[in-house]
């Protein structure tokens, strides 16, 4: 209970800081817009290859871009922890009865909330581009939840890396290192059917792909709710595991003081 309250207080603090510099949210949105608008236009005929489940490439692409954006955002989320460590904000909290768990969790929750806000904005733009969400309002919710879960799963890892390395340069290197491979090993840009066999296998173990499949599943016709639930379930489980890992690295940070 105290952990939840403290998490809330700290999320409020981080969100307020973020809102003071909304340029950050704008910057994080430029890239997905480029993918959505430029890439969507450039490759719009790719659906003729088959296996896309729709003739409209932008409809195929939009839910995946929401998830991709959430994933990229998550790989950077540890930067905020490093800033707080550098500025000794974390140490100040450690000398109070503040919940230790909340210090870590608030970073992950803030990251996921940011991803949700971005998801809504991207979806609105997608709507303007003529994307139709087949399952309606519930579909919107599922896309946003998928984005949040992919984000929190990777935010946990990013927090752990931040706490282990405590260096911005290392964080940037790792974020770049895992970003593109996990993107291309998913069906974000191309239908699963068009992938080489080994990639299909690899993508099954890629959490980004779980999110993409769930989000796309509710946007395109022929939704299989069982698969959507299963993908979201896996992501939830993974989020719990990575949050646990981040908390464990926080303990080792405390011991190092």
């Amino acid at each position, binding site marked *: 209970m105290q952990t939840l*309250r*403290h998490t809330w*207080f*700290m999320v409020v*603090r981080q969100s*307020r*800081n973020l809102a*003071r*510099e909304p340029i950050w949210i704008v910057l994080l949105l430029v890239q997905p817009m480029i993918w959505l608008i430029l890439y969507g236009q450039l490759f719009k005929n790719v659906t003729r290859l088959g296996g896309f489940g729709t003739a409209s490439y932008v409809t195929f692409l939009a839910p995946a871009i929401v998830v991709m954006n959430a994933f990229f955002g998550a790989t950077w989320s540890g930067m905020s922890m490093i800033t*707080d460590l550098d*500025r*000794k*904000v974390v*140490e*100040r*909290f*450690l*000398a*109070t*009865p*503040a*919940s230790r768990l909340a210090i870590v969790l608030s970073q992950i929750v803030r990251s996921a909330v940011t991803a949700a806000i971005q998801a809504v904005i991207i979806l609105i733009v997608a709507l303007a581009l003529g994307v139709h969400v087949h399952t309606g309002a519930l579909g919107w919710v599922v896309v946003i939840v998928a984005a949040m879960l992919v984000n929190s799963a990777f935010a946990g890892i990013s927090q752990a890396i931040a706490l282990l390395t405590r260096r911005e340069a290392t964080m940037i290197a790792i974020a770049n290192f895992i970003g593109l491979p996990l993107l291309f090993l998913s069906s974000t840009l191309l239908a699963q059917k068009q992938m080489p066999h080994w990639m299909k296998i690899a993508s099954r173990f890629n959490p980004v792909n779980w999110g993409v499949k769930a989000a796309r599943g509710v946007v395109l016709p022929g939704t299989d709710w069982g698969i959507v639930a299963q993908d979201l379930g896996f992501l939830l489980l993974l989020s719990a595991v990575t949050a646990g890992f981040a908390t464990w690295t926080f303990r080792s940070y405390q*011991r190092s*003081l």
Partner: protein
Amino acid sequence: MDAIVADDLRKHYGAIQALDGVSFAVRDGEVFALLGPNGAGKSTTVRVLVTLTRPDAGKASVAGHDVLREANAVRRTIGYVPQDSGVDPYGTGRENLMLQGRVQGMGGRDLQSRVKELLELVGIADAADRVVRGYSGGMKRRLDIALGLVHRPRVLFLDEPTTGLDPEARVAMWAEVSRLAQAEALTILLTTHYLEEADELADRLAIVSQGRIVVEGTPRELKAQLRGDAVQVELQDGRLDDAKRIMASVGAEPETVLDERTVVARVEDGGRALPGILAALEGAGIGVAGVSLSRTSLDDVYLHYTGRDFQREDRGEQ
């Protein structure tokens, strides 16, 4: 009753023995200073007492709570103002204070009025709703102190409260700390590497050097142990032993040798003794490059108990 008790604290970081058996006690309601040069172990001692760092060995308690076994009870009782601020620069002064109060379990009207009261008490009420990034160094330091006081702690830890402030702001901060100690009925443990600061603020102080407490007492007691004045003589060449013998023969017993050319002696009345000392040295053909006379200060106390010059050690020289 003792507000703070440290008992044989030890802590090492790699090959460095930061604390090598630190023991002292701070009485309820007093202002106690840990005085020592950079790297002496003052901050590490404070970090153990505020539950940030676990000691390798030894025991400590604050306000009757054991820092290891009852860490959360200690955290509720203390205010900690660290050396590096720890303020969130992107929040306003008020937001920083409100969050600090909330994690200390405060809320509602009580917290709001306490924050307002503190903002006025430390004199930053006008800047309360501005983002901290735009604060001056002095204002930031005042906010730091207010953050340590939100939950009405009984014991306040100030780690190097005036480092980085200009001399004027430093004197203002001294007045502030004295006033707060009174207004909030606090026990204060402060660390400093400014001898004047300890002299000015502390009811009692302990000199820390190389992870140990060297001596402990009131500033007056410590200075009284060193009667008379310090005469520091710098020689033109290195005939140190001759110089020491000659100085002793005219009643200026050499106390410490600072380097191969500088010797410090203690005499009852420096002004009177000085001409005699210089004449004797000249008579023996020993050239004097410089001489200085000083009334007893905590500098001398440090030199006396550690055999090292405080200022040089503080700058990291040997």
